[in-house]
């Protein structure tokens, strides 16, 4: 505590704001330098130390589904799942909370992922034909995913690259061999880890003898190991030849069809082969029968079918085996479906996915996963689907992670920290009712131990989607878990079919399709898209605003309710003349009453006229007011009395673009079409010229070169009030402050526009007992025009202590100190270019910080966050978290608006990432790194939500209860090899290392 006091004292003694004010002077640099010299060293180091305790930047975890997955791997012994992506990332998932992520240095797609059987190593194959070895290394009790080696297959000198182009990989069950089948038809054997080529073990084309003599076998399509006899390997060649390779003997099996994949059944006696014509065959391995070609089966027969790309069959102890294969659909009628067929006895289902199938595997029961198949895990391009194979009807198991955030495109997001338990539980209950069609089985992937502590509080992330839904995610911990889904579409009349018949196949349809997965990117009506969300966590009121100027106020209700929602039309133009809205029409509300399930139910609807996108929204649950803004103006609505309190048009009469609405885009298409036609004509003319005149050709080429070299230019022009969309409302803020005089605080509404204007209104609220009868009134109090005319992106009032005013009801719930009403309040205006603090009630500039003028960056996102010290419990500071258009994060102190720290976070080219960023109240944030993934970052040294987990090697796990001697005695190949290696280096640590490397 003593420390804190001194710190506070020091900060007071720092040079006052004025002294350090960044006057734009050409001598700024030198002046700053001088300033620094005058400052006392002690103060600086104190502050620096404090900064280290408060701020720390980490990108902690990625939520959602990896973008463009390209490979799937699974380790039955570790119970871990691995996904490789086209951008070279590799992600491992086990039990909820257990996740690892790695990134290849090369920007190449991961084509295969293999765990080495019974080990913590995995191997990835990239499409640049390099193999990479990764391991989960334990470090201070936590596992880390590390790359430990890479390998490129080198063929004989002079050989074409196809000889070494890897097309199939088999990680041998011994864990020490990797068999690599290539495009040239060779199989190379490599010892792992270490990637040592064992040339004498290679299966070369020359060694494969066929009854008809040598011929081109084409590439190696598949490699499978005999589940019972690890010395036997089956090699499937593209030309349809399968070769059973034993240590010395090889038994060739001739096929004549194009081969897609082979599967060795767990009994070791049967082999399944699938083919490009949609058929599969069952082969016996024992004895001479292998020479006889079995009968081929075509599951979706008669008409030509597409290839079966992968086939597996697993026995069950109780009944018929499971035959699972992907593809094989009738080419003409269902060739475009992405299907996996599951056949067990009489039950036959063709699981119909909404995106391309990458790969699948089956999880078995029991410790070694050799028991009955329990779950089918399918990775499709846009989601991961897990099918419960043991429950009747094979329902889907809800994934606790890897959720497709983008099942409908995300249009906005909103984060609420510290949800009260009551609201949390009610949300959970409402959410559970929506999940009844999911399997009740627990999540089958349980590898690794989640060691991260329980989240300190309950956080909600709300995402708005293009189809008019709002999804509530539990964002407290490492796993972003879906809690509840709210659909606003039912309020409006749309063409959308409300009856979700996704899961209903037609009776007697063949193949027996069943739609699975929730990825559905097609929105029936883009006007339904959610643009702004505001949730009051104390009262359970939710305001949601959309693309067609619709604002819904919803309340959490535990009972279902049948009602019709009446809309209130608000004309934001206020009789402005010369306006013609060319955009979309307003959404029509449903006239008949609609049954709303338990959860958030709408009770007020506001429709803006013109129906432009809602650009700002805020709700004050204590005053029961909601404020909204569009590009035309803003309004204030009393949702208790359901009437409009205030409407203000912010349009600039000369702003033609805003007048016309968003469809002016059409014009530009027309224009661009015209231009492109002109270009074609010009090029034709120049071509003609080329024929006639050679000199003209040269000229034309020069002109072309000049055109290509024409540099990107930027116009330097001061903003004028005539610029377009100056009236667009960017920020709305409710505050109880001193607007008219310094003795009486009044409720007020603040609005900031794109043109740098700020409008302040005082609100008069009737006393609580007459709240329902007396009208709420609003009176204009102030207008501020920022001279630099930059868009106002944030408004905030700081109380007498320099702390931001608390949220509505926060004080009433005893969760915040009541604001200091004794000292003078200040208004903080954040524009895209500057931070300015004004005094209240008399508005005069007190201090400012210029961002754009100094750094050339602009504010994109701004939020207040509480930074707690990582060292002591008592100390913390409010800070302003800012994301700029360059993707940099800044933390500014409050109330002195001084730069504290800055970190580069998002690539500046990643515009959608920057636009999607949302901050939490405790210095964390989320932004989209792809349409389906949120990256979570933390600026706070105290609050860090990052995966902390441990994955132990399977042997270690089984022998951890005092069987160490045995495990050492076992002639375990790799471990011993590694032990010997290390023993040469250090005798004493032999055992320890041996243990680790297992």
């Amino acid at each position, binding site marked *: 505590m003593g420390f804190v006091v001194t710190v506070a004292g020091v900060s007071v003694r720092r040079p006052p704001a004025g002294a350090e004010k960044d006057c734009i002077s*050409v001598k700024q640099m030198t002046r700053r330098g001088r300033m620094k010299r005058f400052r006392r060293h002690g103060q600086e180091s104190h502050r620096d130390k404090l900064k280290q305790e408060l701020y720390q930047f980490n990108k902690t975890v990625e939520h959602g589904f990896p973008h463009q997955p390209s490979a799937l791997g699974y380790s039955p012994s570790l119970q871990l799942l691995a996904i490789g992506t086209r951008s070279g990332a590799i992600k491992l998932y086990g039990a909820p909370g257990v996740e690892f992520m790695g990134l290849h240095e090369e920007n190449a797609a991961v084509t295969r992922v293999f765990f080495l059987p019974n080990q913590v190593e995995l191997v990835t194959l990239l499409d640049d034909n390099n193999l990479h070895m990764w391991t989960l290394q334990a470090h201070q009790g936590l596992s880390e995913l590390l790359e430990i080696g890479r390998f490129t297959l080198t063929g004989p000198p002079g050989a074409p690259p196809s000889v070494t182009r890897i097309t199939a990989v088999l990680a041998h069950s011994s864990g020490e061999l990797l068999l690599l089948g290539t495009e040239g038809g060779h199989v190379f054997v490599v010892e792992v880890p270490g990637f040592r080529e064992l040339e004498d073990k290679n299966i070369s084309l020359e060694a494969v003898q066929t009854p008809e003599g040598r011929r081109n076998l084409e590439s190696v399509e598949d490699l499978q190991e005999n589940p019972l006899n690890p010395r036997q390997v089956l090699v499937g060649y593209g030309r349809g030849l399968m070769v059973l390779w034993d240590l010395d003997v090889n038994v060739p099996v001739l096929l004549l069809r194009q081969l897609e994949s082979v599967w060795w059944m767990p009994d070791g006696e049967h082999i399944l082969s699938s083919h490009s014509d949609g058929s599969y065959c069952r082969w016996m391995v024992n004895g001479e029968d292998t020479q006889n070609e079995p009968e081929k089966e075509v599951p979706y027969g008669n008409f030509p079918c597409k290839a079966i790309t992968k086939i597996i069959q697993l026995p069950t102890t109780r009944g018929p085996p499971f035959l699972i294969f992907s593809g094989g659909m009738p080419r003409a009628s269902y060739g475009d479906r992405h299907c996996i067929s599951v056949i067990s006895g009489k039950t036959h289902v063709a699981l119909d996915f909404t995106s391309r199938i990458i790969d699948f595997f089956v999880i078995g029961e029991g410790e070694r996963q050799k028991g009955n198949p329990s779950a089918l895990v399918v990775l499709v391009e846009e989601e991961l689907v897990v099918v419960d194979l043991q429950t009747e009807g094979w329902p889907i198991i809800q994934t606790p992670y890897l959720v497709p955030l983008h099942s409908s495109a995300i249009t906005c997001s909103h984060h609420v920290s510290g949800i009260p338990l009551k609201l949390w539980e009610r949300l959970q209950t409402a959410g559970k009712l929506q999940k009844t069609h999911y399997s009740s089985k627990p999540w089958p992937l349980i590898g690794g131990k989640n060691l991260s502590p329980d989240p300190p509080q309950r956080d909600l992330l709300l995402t708005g989607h293009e189809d008019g839904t709002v999804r509530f995610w539990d964002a407290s911990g490492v796993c972003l878990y879906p809690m509840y889904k709210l659909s606003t579409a039912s309020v409006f009349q749309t063409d959308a079919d409300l009856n979700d018949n996704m899961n209903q196949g037609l009776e007697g349809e063949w193949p027996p399709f069943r739609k699975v997965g929730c990825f559905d990117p097609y929105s029936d009506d883009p006007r339904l898209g959610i643009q702004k969300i505001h949730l009051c966590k104390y009262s359970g009121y939710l305001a949601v605003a959309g693309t067609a100027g619709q604002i819904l106020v919803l309340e959490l209700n535990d009972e279902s309710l049948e009602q019709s929602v009446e809309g209130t039309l608000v004309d934001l133009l206020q009789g402005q003349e010369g306006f013609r809205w060319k955009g979309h029409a307003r959404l029509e509300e449903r006239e008949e009453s609609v049954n709303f399930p338990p959860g958030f139910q709408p009770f007020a609807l506001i429709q803006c006229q013109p129906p432009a996108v809602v650009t700002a929204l805020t709700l004050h649950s204590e005053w029961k007011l909601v404020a909204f803004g569009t590009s035309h103006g803003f309004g204030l609505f009393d949702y208790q009395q359901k009437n409009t309190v205030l409407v203000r048009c912010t349009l600039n009469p000369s702003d033609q673009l805003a007048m016309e609405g968003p469809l002016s885009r059409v014009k530009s298409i027309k224009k661009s079409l015209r231009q492109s036609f002109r270009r074609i004509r010009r090029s034709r003319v120049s071509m003609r010229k080329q024929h006639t005149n050679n000199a003209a050709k040269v000229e034309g080429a020069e002109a072309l070169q000049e055109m290509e070299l024409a540099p*990107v230019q930027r*116009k330097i022009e001061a903003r004028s009030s005539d610029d377009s969309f100056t009236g667009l409302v960017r920020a709305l803020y409710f505050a109880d402050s001193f607007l008219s005089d310094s003795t009486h605080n009044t409720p007020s509404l603040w609005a900031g526009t794109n043109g740098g204007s700020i409008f302040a209104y005082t609100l008069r609220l009737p006393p609580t007992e007459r709240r329902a009868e007396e009208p709420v009134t609003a009176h204009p109090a102030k207008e501020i*025009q920022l001279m630099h005319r930059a868009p106002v992106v944030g408004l905030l009032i700081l109380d007498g202590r320099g702390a931001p005013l608390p949220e509505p009801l926060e004080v009433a719930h005893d969760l915040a100190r009541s604001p200091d009403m004794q000292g003078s309040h200040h208004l903080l205006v954040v524009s895209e270019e500057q931070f300015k603090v004004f005094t209240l009630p*008399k*508005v005069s500039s007190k201090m400012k910080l210029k961002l754009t003028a*100094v750094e*050339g960056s602009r504010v994109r996102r701004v939020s207040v966050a509480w930074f707690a010290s990582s060292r002591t419990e008592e100390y913390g500071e409010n800070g302003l978290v800012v994301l700029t258009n360059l993707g940099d994060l800044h933390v500014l102190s409050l109330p002195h608006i001084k730069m504290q720290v800055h970190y580069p976070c998002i690539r500046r080219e990643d515009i959608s990432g920057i636009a999607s960023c949302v901050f939490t109240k405790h210095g964390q944030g989320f932004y989209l790194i792809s349409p389906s993934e949120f990256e979570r970052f933390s600026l706070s040294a105290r609050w860090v939500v990052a995966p902390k987990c441990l994955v132990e090697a399977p042997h270690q796990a089984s022998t951890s209860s005092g069987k160490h001697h045995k495990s050492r005695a076992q002639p375990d190949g790799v471990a011993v090899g590694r032990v010997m290696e290390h023993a040469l280096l250090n005798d004493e640590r032999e055992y320890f290392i041996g243990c680790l490397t297992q």
Partner: protein
Amino acid sequence: MNRSFKSQSVRYLDCNAVEVKSKYGAEFRRFSVDRVKPGKFEEFYKLILHIHKIANAEVMIGYADVHGDLLPINNDDNFCKAVSSAHPLLRIFIQRQGTVSLSTWQKSRKRIREEVDYSNFGTNTLTRRKKAVVTLRNDVNRKRPQIRIGMPQDFRPVSSIIDVDILPESHRRVRLYRHGSDKPLGFYIRDGTSVRVTPHGLEKVPGIFISRMVPGGLAESTGLLAVNDEVLEVNGIEVSGKTLDQVTDMMIANSHNLIITVKPVNQRNNIVRSSRTSGSSGQSTDSSGSVGYLGVAAAAATAHSFIADELESDEDSDIVIESSIKRPSRRSNASSAHSRSHTVTPVPPSPPQRPSSTVSAASCHSQSGLNGTAHGSLSSRLQRDLCLPPHQGSSPAFRESNGSLHKILSAMRTDPRHSLALPQGGVEEDGTVITL
């Protein structure tokens, strides 16, 4: 001829006397002042009033310098300068003050010359280009009303070269003043490569260049920037390592007071170092043939006092409009100017003692007559009132707000929504107050 010779000889004999020929209206007076000790401007001013028997009127005093340009005398410095540079005699022109018009005013000396030619000053025998003017004079009198020229402090500089003393000769730091000017800044920038001398030899580095000038724009009219000039700094911040978009944003953010350091592509017009010995004290050198620079030097001289001011306080003077809560009716009729009181206070130039953003109410009852003024003349009246002393043109805020006031005014005419009620008696601030 004889007289002039005589005066010459007098000057040789008594080096301290400077012959002064003073003209007020059609009257001439001749007297002399001490060259070494000319005394205070105040005394000189009183002397002038006395000699010409001007009573109860403010006058402006100007003199013709060696180049035939009309320069003002309004303080000790330029009085001193006028006396010391008189060769052989000091020609003084006196004009009655009070009819100052805020004409579109350019600090460029060239423009001054032109305006002088067309003004009532110019009709006198002032310039050496008299003959050329004579032909013009007749149509001038016929065609356009006579434009009077205000005092230098009423004028607004458009551009200047600054920090000549600290910059390398190959660089040029140009300051563009956009305040209130209806001219666009008017230039484009692009990416490019420039060659730098580094310890490792010559190295190609990315740079930002001026790519285009908008005809008639401020940048072009100054003549201080040219296409292909490399931009090195913007308001003291180096642009190296910044993207084109960043630099664009920086320039736009500073557009009200843009200082760009360039490396001109044409290095022949550089300011010669020897001429900077006097710093920016206003010594205009004739060494360079470029009119633009001369103008700038002169501008620096006259505008010097408030340039410093602006450097210190480039506060963006935000306009704050307050309305009284007691007047609930916002639906006032646009046609009645009386019912609608509009109070706008641009922020004073913000020397430290003044608040930088002020809010004000109707303290100017004396100007209440304005309320009845017809709409069409509002803006011109407003402008005139805005340039009342003591703030005058030296206030950047005023210049800044000038344009936006126009906007407000024009908006008001069309849009009654902007009208706000007038706060009654809530005036605490001093500073310029405009009541509509």
